[in-house]
């Protein structure tokens, strides 16, 4: 029920601006973007899809920031492992 997955906007229907053709890993479906009326939605944007509606635009900068943070964790972890293996107490 909380099922919300990311999809890429392919096109906005000219005759029905409320509907966008969205791609999820090669599967295409018409999604209602009426809940994003206050924002500009363009082909190439990514949206969060839930029961046939787009609830939110996925902020790619934030996604990148989140991933960078996580990658940073990874690096810190790697560094620590290296430090651990290289340290000698005797």
């Amino acid at each position, binding site marked *: 029920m909380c*099922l919300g*997955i990311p999809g890429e906007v392919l096109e906005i229907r000219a005759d029905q601006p409320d509907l966008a053709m969205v*791609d*999820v*890993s*090669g*599967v*295409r*479906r018409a999604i209602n973007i009426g809940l994003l009326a206050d924002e500009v939605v363009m082909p190439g944007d990514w949206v969060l*899809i839930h029961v046939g509606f787009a609830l939110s635009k996925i902020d790619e900068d934030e996604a990148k920031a989140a991933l960078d943070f996580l990658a940073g964790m990874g690096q810190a972890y790697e560094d620590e492992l290296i430090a651990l293996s290289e340290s000698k107490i005797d």
Partner: protein
Amino acid sequence: MTTGRRSWVDDALAEHDEVAREERRRGPTTEKEREQAVLDRIDRARRRRPKVREERITLAHGSGGKATHTLVEAIFLDAFRNPMLEPMEDAAALAINGGRIALTTDSYVVSPLFFPGGNIGDLAVNGTVNDLAVSGATPLYLSAGFILEEGLPVERLTEIVTSMASAAENAGVRIVTGDTKVVQQGKADGCYINTAGVGLLDPGRELGVAQAKPGDAVLVSGPIGDHGVTIMLARGELDIEADLMSDTAPVHTMVARLLAEVPGVRAMRDATRGGVATILNEVAKAANVSVVVDEDAVPVRPVVRGASELLGIDPLYVACEGRVVVVVDGTQADAALRALRADPLGAEATVIGRIGADPPGIVLLKTTFGGTRIVDMLVGDPLPRIC
């Protein structure tokens, strides 16, 4: 329905109370021990003789999962029981006058009748040929019984039958007998087809999932879930488009080569309703072994994955129609892969897991993430009328 339920609910409660009394007698236990005790109790419950609790048949009984298995074991097997039926493989092995033949039967109720990649006729021929092939038999003869709905356009029927003739020729089998019935409009959804298939078994070769041993490898001949998702999309109810076709195909040539080149093949199964997960559970249960699958290794087309994510279903449970699951001696896994990949239908064959000893009867999935979870038999029916 409610009355029936209360009685076995009361039984379960009584059992729980009894176990709880016993535990109190034994003295204080840690949380871990209590949890383990509950899990053991569940294990015992799972191994109990299956009983059908529902009063009516539901769609779940046709999904190929838990309900189907319970229905078959509790009602059909119970009534018809004999040594040839009991192995419950894809085909029965019969000894006749010194020779051995394989006999299989299938019914096709797929809706819609026509879908990307084929139609009900293709499914009927290929599906039956495949059941024979994975049982180690050379497919020879098929029967085809038709139940037609009043009002079905003859042109549609002709298309279906032409496909069947073509599929039969392609698979090297002949349709030698048949039957035709017509039912009133509103029943049979256009057309239902029932088939039986007969093939010749190699006298020296006995395959069966009960032969799986720890150390064996589990292979799949190609990407899973294509057929089920194609059908679901073809129904047009979900307003989803994708470039996807059913994988219906006869696998007998691929299988014959595999058997010829790899002596250590224990068993093969045709992955249809219930998907790969169901077969793995059947292996685990029949041989009392564990099956450990590597999630990363399971081949799934991006489109199938996307559709599955969208709908919240697991590709492991989605039907295929031209894929084979192979259990083979671990030391011969590479040879098996080579044999499968030599055939165009097996070009993307991969090893997806191993057979282990513990925990017996359970299928485990090592997730991409490094965790492990249990892959149980399918419950309910996410995609009705797939085959």
